[in-house]
């Protein structure tokens, strides 16, 4: 359904844009309909940029992102709006996602006229109620309130409910739970898992390996804007091949094992970490690496 081919994004900085900062370099992967994919990377890996490009908020400098064959970057006007009727995003900071001046209901009204003009008031309210139920919220608890009156978890769920108002096929979830407390994180994550059973595809952008592993079918590991490992989640986590993936997995603090007991070879200085992707089997590919 969604395909990225050699997508590259270079930011221009400095006076008159002379310095070039590559954020994403030749990233390619596919997402099938109804699939949950985690895009895992640390800071500077370009994962948020990839998410934004898929959402059409930034244009790739090179390469193409196509949805059912249509180039996303070329969409404008009505075509772009139709795209947004099928593809939506939820971002990291729930409090930043709401305009503090208005009540939270506004995020729903904002999608009514452009996407659902044919619904009359009763149908609209009905649909709203069902969306809220799907995310586990009581309409009376959340409607009519200002953002600062609700918790981060409720706000994130409202955003997911907003996305569900449309006939969504794909959701880009960019670090949506990193700002939530541990006890609410898992509930929002479970919600994403439940949505998948409704046929919704999700791109789960995160730096947290445990969460990525918990929820996704396939995993993509990004390092400095390049894909270093991609494949079915059990394979990537169970049999990590790339040194960066292995380093990541060994550095994650776990409640079941101490750091000393995990072993990983330290990365030698001068190792080139990301060459072209080489398939290991039909659902697992690793970027080539080696000394310079």
């Amino acid at each position, binding site marked *: 359904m969604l395909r990225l081919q050699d997508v590259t994004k270079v930011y221009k900085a400095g006076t008159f844009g002379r310095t070039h900062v590559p954020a994403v370099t030749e990233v390619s992967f596919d997402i099938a309909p109804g699939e949950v994919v985690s895009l895992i990377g640390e800071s500077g890996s370009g994962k948020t940029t990839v998410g*934004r490009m898929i*959402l059409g908020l930034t244009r790739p400098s090179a390469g193409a992102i196509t949805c059912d064959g249509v180039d996303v970057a070329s969409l404008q006007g009505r075509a772009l709006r139709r795209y947004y009727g099928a593809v939506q995003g939820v971002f990291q900071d729930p409090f930043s996602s709401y305009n503090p*001046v208005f009540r939270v209901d506004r995020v729903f009204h904002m999608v009514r006229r452009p996407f659902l003009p044919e619904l009359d008031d009763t149908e609209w309210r009905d649909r709203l109620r069902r969306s809220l139920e799907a995310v586990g919220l009581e309409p009376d608890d959340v409607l009519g309130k200002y953002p600062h009156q609700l918790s981060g978890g409720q706000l994130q769920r409202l955003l997911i409910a907003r996305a569900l108002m449309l006939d969504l096929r794909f959701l880009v979830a960019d670090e949506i739970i990193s700002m939530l407390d541990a006890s609410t994180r898992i509930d929002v994550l479970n919600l994403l898992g439940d949505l998948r059973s409704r046929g919704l595809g999700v791109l789960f952008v995160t730096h947290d390996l445990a969460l990525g592993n918990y929820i996704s079918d396939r995993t993509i590991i990004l390092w400095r804007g390049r894909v270093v490992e991609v494949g079915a989640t059990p394979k990537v986590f169970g049999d990590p091949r790339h040194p960066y993936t292995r380093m990541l997995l060994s550095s994650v603090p776990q409640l079941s094992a101490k750091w000393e007991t995990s072993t990983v070879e330290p990365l030698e200085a001068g190792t080139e970490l990301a060459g072209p992707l080489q398939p290991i089997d039909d659902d697992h590919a690793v970027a080539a690496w080696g000394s310079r």
Partner: protein
Amino acid sequence: MTTVDPVLEAIDPEQRVSTPDPVPRRRNEVLYFAFRNRKLVIGLSVVGLMLVLAIVGPWLTSAGPFEFGYPTGEPPSRAHWLGTTASGQDVFTQFVHGLRASFLVGALGGCVAALIGMAIGFTAGYRGGAVDELLSMLTNVVLVIPTLAVLIIVAAYLTVRGLVAEALLIGATSWPWAARAIRAQTFSLASRDFVSLARLSGARPTQVVVREIAPNMSSYLFLTFILLFGGAILTAATLDFLGLGPSNAMSLGLMLNTAVVSSALQLGMWWWFIPPGLAITAIVGGLYVTNVGLDEVFNPKLRET
């Protein structure tokens, strides 16, 4: 996890108030703090008083401001509340008409400057890139031009000058700092997620600016307008004082001009030049003080609790 302010976290969610709001959360909270803020109350009172005088004053006088025929150089008396000028005109009539003119020029000039500043500031801040570079260059050029010199030259060339023309000229040259300030604020707001969300809801750039960004800056825009208003009055007074103001209307600056030319200072005709000078100082000063007070009201962190 974000930095957690224990006080905010702990307060019952129903009563939580976030830190720096560009826009107040509830009307009554704004009014509550507004009326308790001394600077705001004093500033508004002064300006309000002058405004009332400006509106009501001309109705209290039967004559026109340029009318001659009164005894010359008389100090204030019951017949002439602020005395008369050296050429036999009623100072009070001139004063209230001048006040009215000042407020009109201030409002119109301030509006024009605010509109231009907003248009350029929002566009440059939201679009970024080449458009921003171009508009910033334009802003910097106009900023650097010595406004007063330009106004003097332009005014000197115009044969007939009206109040509106003066206001437009002032508006057209005082917008740059407002544009820069608005641009900076827009930059920071444009990167917020609710702007991205608006785009994802299919909003076009103008819609995003008007519906998402501007409301978040409304208190800032309001304050900017007040400053532009005060600045316009001051610039107009300066121009009028130099004799380059409207040729057909009375203004406070013109009063000062005539007073100086007629050696009112040396002749001790304090009733002629003190009222206009004091009025200008009071209005502009009052506006600036109001501005500071409003800033405290809108920004919870500045409040002296």
